[in-house]
């Protein structure tokens, strides 16, 4: 079963050095998951000042600056993983470096038909 791990963190909480070290640790985790066959995809996201939100209302495109919701912690990256059940996914989420200071939200990925083969 596929799970998406959404990595939330106060994006101003890290210094530049801490951020770089967090990327290195996260890449290391991705390598480990890859070695155990649990890795599908992962990446950090650029910070929320680069975010753009789009809505279509009455056929009109509303484009606004900023993330979907202003929250204390922001979506900062993701892992897409293979895990046999939620306990295994929780175990992996606990290994994400940001889990120590931020929050990892686990969402099961729905299987629908009609998607292109990756």
């Amino acid at each position, binding site marked *: 079963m596929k799970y998406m791990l959404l990595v939330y963190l106060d994006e101003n909480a890290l210094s530049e050095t801490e951020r770089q070290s967090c990327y290195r640790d996260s890449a290391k985790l991705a390598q480990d998951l890859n070695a155990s066959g649990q890795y599908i995809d992962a990446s950090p996201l650029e910070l929320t000042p680069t975010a753009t939100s789009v809505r279509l209302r009455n056929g009109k495109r509303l484009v606004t600056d900023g993330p979907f919701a202003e929250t204390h912690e922001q979506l900062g990256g993701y892992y897409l993983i293979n895990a046999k059940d*939620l306990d295994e996914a929780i175990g992996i989420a606990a290994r994400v470096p940001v889990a120590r200071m931020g929050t990892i939200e686990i969402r099961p990925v729905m299987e629908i038909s009609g998607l292109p083969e990756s």
Partner: protein
Amino acid sequence: MNESTSQNVRKILDDIYRTESRRVLATLIRLLGDFDTAEDAMHDAFSAALDQWQRDGVPANPRAWLVSAGRFKAIDQIRRRTKFETSLEPFIEQIGNAAADEPEPDHEGIEDDRLRLIFTCCHPALRPDARVALTLREVCGLTTEEIAHAFLTTPPTLAQRIVRAKAKIRDARIPYEVPSKEDLPDRLEVVLQVIYLVFNEGYSASSGDAATRPDLSDEAIRLGRLLKELLPDPEVLGLLALMLLHESRRSARTSPAGEIILLEDQNRSLWNRELIAEGTALVERSLSSQQFGPYTLQAAIAAVHAEASAAASTDWAEIVGLYSLLLRMTPSPVVELNCAVAVAMRDGSSAGLEIIDSILARGDLVDYHLAHSARAELCRRLGRTEEARASYERALALAQQEPERRFLEKRLNKLQS
């Protein structure tokens, strides 16, 4: 077949339902991989038994018979539902094969299934109120109506809560497993929390007219006994001991009119000696393991109270010592408050009052009625009547539960006279 055989089989089945239905369900959930399918299958199996046992007699191992019948009923159901679909055939085959391969379920296998059921219902990924509802429904076999009534909510609300929890178990794939050794301590803590919450709701209901709802306490104790049988961890023993020792005072802690009677004023001859003996033995067993935690310490405190023949002969030094240990293990203002009351008994009211005032001064427990009523009581003993009155009034303004409010009003009136 005559009338008496039919009645006889019905009675035997009723007994088996009471003692075995949770075990049968726990195993069927594992075999069928789904709560709802397993529940339907179990009920189908019991109806089939009513017919077949009248004709063929009661089988040697009724539980194995019911599990096996339930499994085949489920396969029939799935076949009928998907008559024109072939996509489920591999799944049906898998259940069928599992049926053929499965040896007669032995004692250990069955007991593992019951643990799986408990850990799944108390999974931390479920909402706390859903854990409680699901545990009472699936592990204890209470009806939705009974649970709704106990928690002062409507059956549709409660049913919805259970449906959502089952959907999360299925969709997020919460496993039907006893947690791994490294996860076990954290996961067991959640199970113990659920059981203690059920007990407390029965022992001192958070709202409503009656101070207690004994049915829920009985269920919690039954759960505690079951868990002790399946997983005799020191804290499991500690929690069971704590519940038994509290339960031993039930008939002494309220008057026939439903008024609260404080520990020090209780008629100790009403305490249930059997429960005390059982609880105390469990405390000793857990303490000797050297692996005990906060439930065992709280039970040890209750055991010290239980062995005192009168409030005045309570070993307060021992109680203060146990509270200090508990505070070190789980620092919390409520534990500190309880410790302060014990210190007041050991060293005098002003020593206790000093601690309570320091808790309130840092802004902790300011909205907790028991902090103010404890403060009021110590002020009263010290002759500081005006302060006592102010604190009782504050406590009364914060108390939610009717008997507690009546108790505080009575104290306040006594002060004025």
